[in-house]
């Protein structure tokens, strides 16, 4: 289960990141995103920290949706998904591999984005690092799990239940809200950063379990 999933995740990441320019492109992308959001909101004169937190999470969601739309793109292109379905591995491994790749992608993006964000908004001070990183990682895990699940559902359910992924995707909103809350907490504004972090962890667990249970039915006819 783990080894094939890793093999699949590796291939998918190689496909995404093969060219080193991609990392550079992400940096540019994040910078452009932050500039746009900044300009859009600059008149609002909102509290710097909260606005900054919102901006970070909006960028994370946008990047995630962008990544998720492509999750199984390489596999549908030339029927490569058939080869994965035929291989002597669990179907869960295919979904899990895709989720890992998605997680890796998100983490790579954030490793670039968060320092840029930090530099732009907090020349002195800034949030506590540990809770922030914790919130991001936990949220990334959740996004990757749920998002890949939705993508897998969309793939298998070609004919009919287009609605299913649409039901799954809104589940990302609570995740993001918890992320924003945790980020506020990391500024020391709110007292307990632990509650949102706990929520994120719980969320991840619940959906990991759900995905696991249903993964046999996710892909294929």
């Amino acid at each position, binding site marked *: 289960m783990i*080894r*094939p999933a890793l*093999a*699949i995740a590796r*291939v998918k990441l*190689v*496909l995404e990141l*093969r060219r080193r320019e991609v990392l550079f492109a992400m940096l540019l992308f994040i910078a452009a995103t932050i500039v746009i959001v900044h300009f859009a909101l600059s008149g609002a004169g909102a509290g710097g920290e909260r606005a900054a937190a919102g901006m970070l999470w909006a960028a994370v969601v946008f990047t995630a949706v962008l990544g998720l739309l492509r999750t199984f793109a*390489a596999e549908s*292109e*030339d*029927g*490569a998904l*058939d*080869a*994965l*379905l*035929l*291989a*002597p*591995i*669990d179907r869960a491994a295919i979904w899990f591999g895709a989720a890992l790749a998605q997680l890796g992608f998100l983490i790579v993006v954030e490793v670039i984005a968060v320092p840029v964000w930090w530099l732009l908004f907090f020349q002195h001070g800034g949030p506590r690092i540990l809770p922030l990183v914790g919130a991001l990682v936990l949220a990334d895990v959740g996004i990757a799990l749920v998002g890949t699940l939705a993508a897998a559902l969309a793939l298998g359910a070609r*004919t009919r239940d287009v609605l299913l992924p649409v039901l799954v995707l809104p589940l990302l909103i609570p995740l993001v809200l918890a992320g924003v809350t945790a980020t506020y907490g990391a500024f020391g504004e709110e007292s307990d950063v632990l509650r949102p972090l706990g929520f994120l962890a719980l969320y991840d667990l619940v959906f990991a379990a759900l995905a696991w249970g249903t993964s046999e039915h996710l892909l*294929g*006819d």
Partner: protein
Amino acid sequence: MDAPAVSLSACSKRFGDRLALRKATLTVAPGETIVLLGPNGAGKSTLLRLVAGLLRPTAGSAQIGNAEACSAPRSLRAGLAYAGHRAQLYRGLTARENLGLHARLHRLTDLDIDAALDGVGLADRADERIDGFSRGMLQRLALARAIAHAPGLLLLDEPASGLDAAGRLLLDGVLMDGLGQRTQLIASHDHELPARLGVRTVHLAGGRLA
């Protein structure tokens, strides 16, 4: 006696309003080779995909070994190979990387990728991304992949399409070598193929086995 390698019983497949396969019943003994003939849209590809477990029958059953094909255990899938109309390869990877992934998924620790590529005449193109490959080169790579893990059950859907004369000879060689060694099910429009191989044919038309 052995269990049949492949057995369809009253197997039907419906896509929306269309019955692509109607109550097909077919038994293939282990080691037997069968050529599947029939006009366009007859249901050949559908039949092969049912046997491969990529489709689930609407009614009836499609079995390989003793298991339902679409939920066959991993051990059975390890001995199965299917090459269809699409190349089933990652366009963004090189030929070597594609076979490498296949080897890792099939736990073939000792697969000689260079030899496999050489066998289909692609030795000098091993490290090129396959999105620059020509139609026939892709078909050759798909063939190499299908036989890389020495399957006991080989399902090929028009394997000769896009191949040049040399490639078709090579393919005939592969099929000949497999005679009696493994179960082979080949969909084809080449009406001389059964005679060349000296094997049984099965005719399909309008989703019905004749």
